[in-house]
């Protein structure tokens, strides 16, 4: 997916862009509202991540102009303010959702998925591997014409494997990505989810292999 990130704090902007880049997303960074307008004039984005307090104006004004111009690109407001005071304003001026800083990337992705699902449009998000089609927005796996529903964590796990097919992913790595850092997770929790995902993959050439002592990997055949 292609993101436009409008954030004036250079460090935060860099780290959010780096993080989104690691997930395979394209990110353009704008430090001001003027820059954001320049990007929007020439590039079509799947999603805009918008800060509220910017050096050349209020993000909410940008949002209002964006909606008046009838641009459909969904906007998620990233607010550092108290959730209470900004919420009504942001949603009233046409934001599709908001997330308070600091945020969990998994949650940001979940929110992006939810917004894109509501908007119904979004770019090509379906992915294919071996003989299966994976649709993270609809949370489905399609194998030989059979559509299988997935739960949220199964979707995220599937995405992790699809982002690095053939590579070994350690248990720790998967735990970090799948659970929040404040959750207490037992050692076999990840095995439970891998087990469930394997069941969803039954009948497909795609398989999740256990690499003893190292982790798991997604293979074709």
């Amino acid at each position: 997916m292609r993101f436009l990130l409008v954030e004036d704090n250079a460090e935060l902007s860099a780290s959010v862009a780096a993080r989104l880049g690691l997930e395979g997303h394209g990110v353009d960074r704008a430090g001001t509202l003027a820059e954001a307008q320049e990007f929007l004039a020439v590039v079509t984005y799947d999603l805009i991540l918008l800060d509220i307090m910017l050096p050349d104006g209020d993000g909410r004004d940008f949002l209002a102009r964006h909606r008046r111009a009838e641009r459909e690109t969904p906007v998620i407001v990233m607010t550092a303010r108290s959730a209470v005071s900004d919420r009504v304003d942001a949603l009233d001026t046409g934001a599709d959702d908001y997330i308070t800083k600091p945020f969990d990337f998994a949650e940001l992705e979940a929110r992006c998925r939810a917004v894109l699902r509501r908007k119904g449009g979004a770019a090509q998000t379906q992915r294919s591997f071996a003989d299966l089609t994976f649709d993270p927005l609809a949370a489905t796996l399609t194998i030989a014409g059979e559509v299988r529903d997935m739960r949220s964590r199964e979707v995220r796990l599937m995405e992790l494997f699809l982002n690095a097919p053939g590579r070994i992913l350690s248990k720790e790595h998967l735990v970090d990505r799948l659970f929040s850092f404040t959750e207490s997770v037992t050692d076999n929790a990840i095995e439970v989810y891998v087990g469930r995902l394997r069941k969803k993959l039954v009948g497909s050439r795609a398989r999740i292999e256990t690499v003893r002592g190292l982790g798991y990997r997604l293979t074709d055949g």
Partner: protein
Amino acid sequence: MRARLVWQLLLLAAALALILYVAVRVGAERASEATLDAVLGAAAQTMAEEMRSAEGGLVIDLAPGTFSMLAAMGEERIFYRVDVAGQTVTGYEDLPLPVALPSALAPTFYSVPFRDAEIRVAAVVRALRIDGRNAPVLVLLGQTREGQGAIANQLGNRAAALGLGVFLAAIPLSLFLARGLLRPIDRLAEAVGRRGAHDLRPVRHPAPVELVPFVTALNSFIGRLRGTLNQTETFIAEAAHHVRTPLAVIRNEAELALRQSGEEETRARLRGLIRSADDAARSTGQLLDHATVLYRAGQAEWAPVDLAVLTQEVATRLEPAAGMKDIGLKLTIAGPLPAVGDAVLIEAALRNILDNAIKYSEAETLVEVQAQTIGQMAVITVSDRGRGLSGVTHDRLKRRFRRGTNVADVAGSGLGLTIVDESAIAMGGSFELKERDGGGTCASLSLPLA
């Protein structure tokens, strides 16, 4: 202030009435005494003039008219004494003499007690030739003054009645005067009192010149209050921005480092770092939310709000957070629930309740949200299958920075339920937290319907 003004006016009226009474009474007494003295003096003088010397003595021809003048003064008793060369020749020998003997024909007057009565005496001296010698003749004429006392009392009573009348007339007058004087202040107070809690415009009501300094001071105060409130709001927003943006950088960088590091020891440290950043972010968020709730609760910025729609919105908003743990949200919302309140406060309350339910629930459980009408209240109930309250009472958990005994492993500030409770109270509603049958917690937020 009005009562004090009335009292002061009445006190003044009472003092005036008293002065009037004393002045009338003293004046009347003096006037009547002067009149009576003139008559008495004239009678004494007549007596003295009627005296003639005769063979071996003196003859007093008391003309019938002499005492008739005195008789006209009322039922008074009369005493007289005539001394010739210091010898009493007729009348009452014990009638007291004046302190200083009168010199010419002008009479001297004095009051003296005599025979169980207070009498007024006129003394007159004249010289008569008796037996070829000049002898001084002293004529004393005394008269009781009972009639005068009666007249004085009567006059005094009239004076008292007059004073009382003046005082009674002053009562309605004072009330009327006080009301008239205070009316501009009352009108001003009414104009200010009619304003909404959020109306911080300067007072433009017309006021008399004397009240202009007061109105100016009031307007200056309103201006300062508005400035302070605006500053508070801006401060809350700025503070949040300045704390949370660097926290976001810390968290993101730590997460990136975690992705890139292969060393388990470093990774464990990074996880701890992220947990602390989350903890700090959550606490600052709750503190600022709490400050906002307190600020807004005082503002009472109320508008019609549909609790059904709001509940739906909050639930939709928290769905991704619930999804992270594969927690299902089941909504049962009965029709529109129109209420009047501050949507921001209600949203804060609902979000905190639902956030708690998700936070303390195990993965892959169900959180049920029910919104319905019970009597005059809209009741929103959030039930989870989480860890429950472990016997800690609701009242205790509602207090600031109080947390349950069974939640040490989950990040929290202990302000969430305080925010819910304070929002509910500000809205004229209530909040209740109890153990759910079969395990978990059941939180109910009741808000009055429009």
